């Protein structure tokens, strides 16, 4: 018979052991997924991947040039729309509504939007742009991605601006600085790296989004840079190619997945470094 004390120690040891196993369990999937994309994807990365367009079904060769360019166009549109809107809305929250009920409510709704399913955002973009205009288009995809980017930027801008010490604002106001100048010249500047981090994280978030593009930008097997037509993009091409029975297509899907993951990890890393440097300074 073991004593009560020994039993408590055993229970403790067992449960802490389980906690360690849980951590290993979590990290294990990360390593497995990264290793898979590296193993299947890196070997397929070659020059043709960036210089040739997506091949026809069943044919060999080809690349993902149109998908890369399409994705960059979509990202560019999303940032062009989403970053200014997000920064402005975040500025309002931090600078003009910090202690107001309305501000708290907007912050609350923004957080909901942040976690809203991306497929619903896609359906929304379909309902307000694709359906009225009668055809799928690159710009509707850009709008859908912008809607996902905005809450990320709003939140980080809000948080970063609120970290700016109040004494800085008071000093500026004491000098007679108008409020808009205070925000644009002082608080924005003080939190520039933080706001940039928010935009980078937002880009990382949307660059792999597929669901909102299903009903908006769709996909395009050919080279197209027209904003008024369906446009090829990396996530949709990966979706289509990975589901296909053709080995060449699957190979390209892995290569695309590898590039996408590398791009996103790089962005996250840069964002982390910016935050760390900002904290150190």
């Amino acid at each position: 018979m073991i004593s009560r004390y020994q039993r408590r120690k055993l229970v403790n040891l067992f449960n802490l052991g389980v906690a360690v196993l849980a951590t290993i369990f979590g990290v294990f999937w990360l390593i497995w997924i990264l290793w898979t994309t590296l193993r299947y994807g890196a070997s397929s990365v070659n020059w043709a991947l960036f210089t040739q367009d997506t091949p026809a079904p069943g044919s060999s060769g080809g690349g993902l040039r149109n998908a890369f360019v399409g994705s960059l166009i979509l990202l560019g549109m999303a940032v062009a729309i989403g970053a200014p809107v997000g920064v402005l809305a975040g500025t309002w929250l931090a600078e003009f509504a910090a202690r107001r009920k309305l501000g708290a409510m907007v912050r609350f709704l923004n957080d909901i939007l942040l976690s809203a399913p991306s497929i619903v955002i896609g359906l929304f973009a379909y309902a307000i742009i694709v359906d009225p205009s009668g055809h799928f288009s690159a710009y509707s995809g850009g709008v859908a991605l912008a809607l996902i980017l905005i809450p990320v930027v709003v939140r980080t801008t809000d948080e970063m601006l609120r970290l700016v010490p109040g004494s800085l604002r008071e000093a500026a106001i004491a000098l007679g600085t108008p409020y808009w100048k205070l925000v644009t010249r002082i608080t924005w500047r003080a939190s520039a790296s933080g706001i940039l981090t928010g935009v980078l994280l937002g880009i990382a978030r949307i660059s792999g989004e597929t669901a909102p593009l299903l009903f908006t930008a769709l996909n395009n097997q050919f080279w197209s840079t027209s904003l008024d037509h369906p446009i090829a993009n990396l996530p949709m091409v990966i979706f289509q190619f990975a589901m296909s029975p053709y080995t060449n297509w699957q190979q390209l899907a892995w290569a695309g997945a590898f590039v996408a993951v590398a791009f996103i990890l790089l962005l996250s890393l840069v964002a982390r470094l910016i935050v760390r440097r900002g904290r150190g300074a």
Partner: protein
Amino acid sequence: MKASEAARDAQPIAATADKNSAGPRARISADFLFRNLSAAVAMLVAISLLGILIALWREGWEALHHFGWRFLVSTSWNPVSEHFGALVFIVGTLISSAIALVIAVPVSFGIALFISEMAPRWLRNPVSAAIELLAAIPSIIYGMWGLLVFAPWFSNFEPWINDHLGALPGIGLLFQGPPMGIGMLSAGIVLGIMIIPFIAAIMRDVFLITPAPLKESAYAMGATKWEVARKVILPYTRTAVTGGIFLGLGRALGETMAVTFIIGNANNLSASLLMPGSSIASVIANEFTEATTHLYKSALLALGLILFVITFIVLVLAKLLLLRLDRMEGRKA
């Protein structure tokens, strides 16, 4: 960019105003412009949720009106005879998310406990970063990996699940089926992995802000680490932990691409978790571009509306529970 443009536009006004010594009024107008522009944009962001609701309602109205309440309770989904019911997908969404929670909640608790209470300082940040990276990987990668790597691997275990869990009385029915790898259970497992970072991050944050004196007094009474975690930290952070779980649930409910790859896309209900199924998100993703008739498309948009309403409720609950976390952080600061 818009903001800086506005600022640039506003600047000359103030500058010339200064020269004409009509300062205050012009300054007020630049301020007025900036303040109201940013307020308008913020309102736009807040109202967009309402916009989503209205847009989906309008587009899904045809199907909702046509089928009425039966849309929610009918299990038939037949595009040929144009008979649409959402129940199969609602149930599929709930089951796959439930499986995800069963996996993610205990694992996240373990991870949070490890990071906040057990890990040596040098290990804390790398482990935290690794778990956060799980959230950065796009869902399409999870889906592709799930279909081409995880499912074939997992199908090796399914005969064992059949033999052992499937033989149990009662719940055995849940675990009988062909070893295909894809299906409700696989989708739930991959969903679980995907939401671990969200739940673990919140648990870690609240565990870390549990006041040290509280923990120290328990240790002083001779409590073990586990007892402190279970009987001091967890009760203290219960509300926020529940909020974190709801947040993870909200993610799982609306997750699309990974589920679409792995769930098997069968438009019928089956008792076994090893059989293919469908979720709301997966059926929309699969069938939207094939939906040629108005009613079909409207039915899919109505499904989107249902998904939005469910996730909205879950997320509101999550945020309300998490508001306490903000207050605790506020007290600490």
